[in-house]
């Protein structure tokens, strides 16, 4: 048996197979990037949205929340929160944290400026309009 399928053959199949599938992956990547603009809502990727993404990141929102299902599972999905709650609610909510309800999961006060809040909400609006193949199943996220 070992004369039919040697270690050298196994090694060659490894190199050949890996290179093939990696190249295939690069082709798929190239294609995905090519068609991305038809689904990624980049026409609404303004300077404010970009700034809002930075606010999202520098306050580590992903540390408690999910965004398009990715992140932490402590707090609600925010990819569709713009549609679920609207900008006024979101702004008031963040400004009003923490709730200090005993025993309830707490969100910190981030001391965001008005501009930071508005940009963050722009970012969440932009996110809610990305074509995610119909995910999440409903408004609860």
């Amino acid at each position, binding site marked *: 048996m070992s004369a039919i*399928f040697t270690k050298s053959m196994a090694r060659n199949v490894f190199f050949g197979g*890996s290179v093939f*599938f990696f190249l295939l992956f690069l082709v798929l990547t190239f*294609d995905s990037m090519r068609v991305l603009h038809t689904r990624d809502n980049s026409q609404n990727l303004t300077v404010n949205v970009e700034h809002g993404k930075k606010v999202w990141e520098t306050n580590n929102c992903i540390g408690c929340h999910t965004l398009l*299902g990715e992140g932490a*599972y402590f*707090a609600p999905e925010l990819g569709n929160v713009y549609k679920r709650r609207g900008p006024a609610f979101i702004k008031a909510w963040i400004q009003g944290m923490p709730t200090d309800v005993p025993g309830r999961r*707490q969100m910190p006060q981030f001391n965001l400026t008005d501009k930071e809040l508005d940009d963050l909400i722009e970012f969440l609006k932009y996110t809610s309009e990305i074509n995610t193949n119909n*995910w999440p199943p409903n408004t609860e996220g």
Partner: protein
Amino acid sequence: MKYASQAVAKPYFIAAIGLFLGQILFGLIMGMQYVVGDFLFPAIPFNVARMVHTNLLIVWLLFGFMGASYYLVPEESETELFSPKLAIITFWVFLVAGALTILGYLLVPYASLAKWTGNDMLNTMGREFLEQPLPTKIGIVLVALSWLVNIVMTVLKGRKTAISLVLSLGMLGLAVFWLFSFYNPANLVKDKFYWWWVVHLWVEGVWELILGAMLAFVLIKVTGVDREVIEKWLYVIITMTLITGIIGTGHHYFFIGLPPYWLWLGSIFGALEPIPFLMMTIFAFNMVNKRRRDHPNKAAVLWALGTSVVAFVGAGLWGFLHTLAPINYYTHGTQLTAAHGHLAFYGAYALVVLTMISYAMPILRGRAANSEKAQVMEMWSFWLMTISMFGIALLLTAAGIVQAYLQRVSATPMSFMAVQDQLAIFYWSREAAGLVFLIGLLLYIWSFFIKEKESALV
């Protein structure tokens, strides 16, 4: 040990276990916060505890991989390590940088940490698992480079075995894919697409090469089975890893804004990803069955076999549970994800590092194996940690199913927070399982301090 320079592995292993303990303490904090929502708030908000927990995990595993490399490569290459001094300097750089980073997370508000560490120059912070400040990320590049150079130079000057080749390829892949952590485009879909080039192509890609090489090394040592057989199996296993796992990246591309063909590609290739893990299980049991010697380190054999089983169940089976797009549609970002993540990381990576440490540490301390008493304690540790981790996985799976039903499947969906209240029983039980896990880990640490009454001849 056969080569004096293998001794540099020892500090790496000690650091790995210390950081592992830290990881679990913060895990217990988070588990408590799941049910007592304001526990330690505002001193340690959940997101801070989480980034400490996940970053400690990654760093202790990296210390483990590095220590394992410095131990096994000189022996495989039949020559001393290229530069033991570089290995020790790198150890301290990594440890200090890691400690400072964790302290930064705990003591400084994240937005301030970002501002003070140059995040405005190049914005790399604020993504899951990649929370590290820019200087830390650069430090990791340098540490990885130093590790790579040291290992590759050692292999080049000595005997080249399949094990060292596979390990080196895995390390090279680790270093190259880490570079994507610096790429954070404003376009959220692109951001997420390339983020997975670090995360998926690490843990479902090149890290499996490192895992395979480490497991193969330990199995050769403890079973005495012919190297040719083991190395051929290793190539077959890693072939299956990459031909399933590379396109399998697509199972993260279902619902983040990418074209729908990923729903098919990710489901099919993702469904095949358990195959290399199943092969590892069969391979490990076969090797032990066909062994030519009964190695005195029976604990190491248990850890090795345990790795092959729990990796298959946690990474393979639990991964399969949610890799098909129609199922993932309902389970995406739920407690099922957490269940899989915990059992997979524990089974594949925590266990293989513990296997290596259990095999190598006695030798580094001057004996072939620990005393009967110490080995028994290790075995208790294995069973307590493994059973409690299965408990955690089962509980979170149940929680995830209930969550998916109430929040997404039901005709009258409930809000996230209302659903979380319904899951409290699972979370309390999970915390209890977590405490058992901690006890298991403490026993493992204790086993290092059990005095040798008689030592086996090296």
